């Protein structure tokens, strides 16, 4: 048994997600042993490979470093993975937008199913995954010769960084005439990424406007928190979609999650209910969010938020 992990990286940095995926891979190999290789695909990604080589449990880092891979387009990554997959029993990636874009393509090319978003490993072929927005947990067993799996990173603790795996080049170049990168617009922020933040503070429809999200910023700065939003706030146009926490947005599980003016629709709870400590601030004392909150504060957020900021 051996496992290949597609590394997440952006702007020359290894994504935090990959250390969690290695942890999931270790649970798969624990039973019977086996190698864990990490594949880094991109252009000028030597530093990413170095960082991946330090992850505990990694046997080897394979690097496909070429201009054609600069934007990690699915058409090429899928084909590259398919060319490498025959040496492996499992191919894993995080359930990032890159992983979700690429791995189903690989699975179809190899004529196998894909298991999405696993949150538990029972054995090398049996896994837990949430269905129906996390309102049910399915245990599934795959008899496919190759298991293609995306991993919900919040369900696995990251491995440490004390390793020194070998780094080897992969010289397969996949050309692509079908799709071309045009541009990227990334939210510029000094704050941590939603998926990786230890503290998340999110606003809902109760915020009233996008302007009022400023009330969250001071608190976020003091706590080193990422700022999120409910789907209701996104649908109302207060904030962009990439801030959305929920079934169809980001799934987060920080140490501390503060929900402000969020009623607690199933859709939203699916994205944050695995947080360690949940705080809810809402003026409606019957809001369902209080049923999952460790600490609830009933009050007007326009009074509570400035006071909270001043007392942190």
């Amino acid at each position, binding site marked *: 048994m051996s496992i290949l992990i597609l590394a997440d990286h*952006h702007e020359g940095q290894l994504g935090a997600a990959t250390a969690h995926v290695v942890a999931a891979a270790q649970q798969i190999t624990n039973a019977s042993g086996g190698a864990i290789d990490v594949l880094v695909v991109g252009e000028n990604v030597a530093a990413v490979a170095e960082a991946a080589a330090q992850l505990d449990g990694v046997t080897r880092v394979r690097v496909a470093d070429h201009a054609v891979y600069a*934007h990690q*387009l*699915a*058409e090429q990554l*899928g084909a590259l993975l398919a060319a490498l997959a025959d040496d492996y029993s499992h191919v894993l990636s995080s359930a990032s*937008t890159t992983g*979700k*874009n*690429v791995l*189903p*393509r*690989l*699975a*179809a090319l190899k004529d196998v*199913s*894909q298991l*999405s978003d696993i949150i538990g490993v029972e054995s090398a072929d049996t896994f837990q995954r*949430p*269905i*129906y*927005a*996390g309102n049910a*947990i*399915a245990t*599934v067993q*795959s*008899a*496919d010769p190759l298991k293609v799996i995306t991993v919900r990173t919040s369900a696995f603790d990251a491995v440490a960084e004390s390793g020194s795996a070998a780094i080897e080049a992969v010289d397969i170049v996949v050309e692509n005439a*079908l*799709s071309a*990168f*045009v541009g*990227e*617009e990334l939210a510029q922020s000094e704050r941590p*990424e939603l998926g990786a933040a230890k*503290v998340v503070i999110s606003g809902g429809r109760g915020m009233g406007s996008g302007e009022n999200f400023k009330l969250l910023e001071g608190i976020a700065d003091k706590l080193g928190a990422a700022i999120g939003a409910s*789907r209701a706030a*996104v*649908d109302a146009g207060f904030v962009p*979609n*990439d801030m959305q926490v929920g*079934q*169809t947005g*980001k799934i987060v599980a920080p140490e*501390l999650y503060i929900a402000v003016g969020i009623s607690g629709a199933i859709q939203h709870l699916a994205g944050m*209910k695995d947080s*360690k*400590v*949940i*705080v809810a601030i809402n003026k409606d*004392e019957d809001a369902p969010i*209080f049923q*999952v909150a*460790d*600490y609830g*504060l009933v009050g007007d957020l326009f009074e509570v938020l400035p*006071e*909270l900021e001043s*007392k942190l």
Partner: protein
Amino acid sequence: MKILVAVKRVIDYNVKIRVKPDNSDVDLTNVKMAMNPFCEIAVEEAVRLKERGVASEVVAVTVGPKAAQEQLRTALALGADRAIHVETEAKVESLAVAKLLAKVVEAEQPQLVILGKQAIDTDNNQTGQMLAALTGLPQGTFASAVKVDGDKLQVTREIDGGLQTVDLSLPAIVTTDLRLNEPRYAKLPDIMKAKKKPLDTQTPEALGVEVASKVTLLKVEPPAERQGGIKVGSVDELVDKLKNEAKVL
């Protein structure tokens, strides 16, 4: 341009699901069903492209039980011209659905296929990507904007941390994200008219696709219930609890 749009019959998104007492699956008996929300967005986008004169025909397709005809009629009421029902009572997983859709693509030769990015029952987020791989077509997943420009398609994609724009050669596969559009509601006269629109029925056998999967569902359980905590009376008490009890500050 011909557009093929795939739809799925799923549990209505407002329904709170129940797990069967024997843990074999989720209980769907007497539960309200509807078109998957992301598929509604896919239908809406296809219909808008037709209204703008970019598309000439919109064909809706589903893979599912007899009752899934309801969702095809909904798609027809929303503006699709005709429908194809690949009828099967079997539980069909993403890979088999993608194989069936690939056969339909081969027969229909659409310039564009639009699907929802994920179904809210299995939450897989796979079928569009798999269809793209099987047909050898480019993919624009999690789309928040789609623009046809000659023989190219420009797709803006929702990615972690922001937006990415790609150019795809046509034909191409697109999967929809929430912000692509806001779907309309079907009007009563359109619902009546939809009953007369053509609906062609096919079977997996006739299309030569084996739908059995190598993945077995062993059990389904409700998630661990999170216990509600306490209400605090003031910001001071909240900060104190977070510092001294939860120790997260």
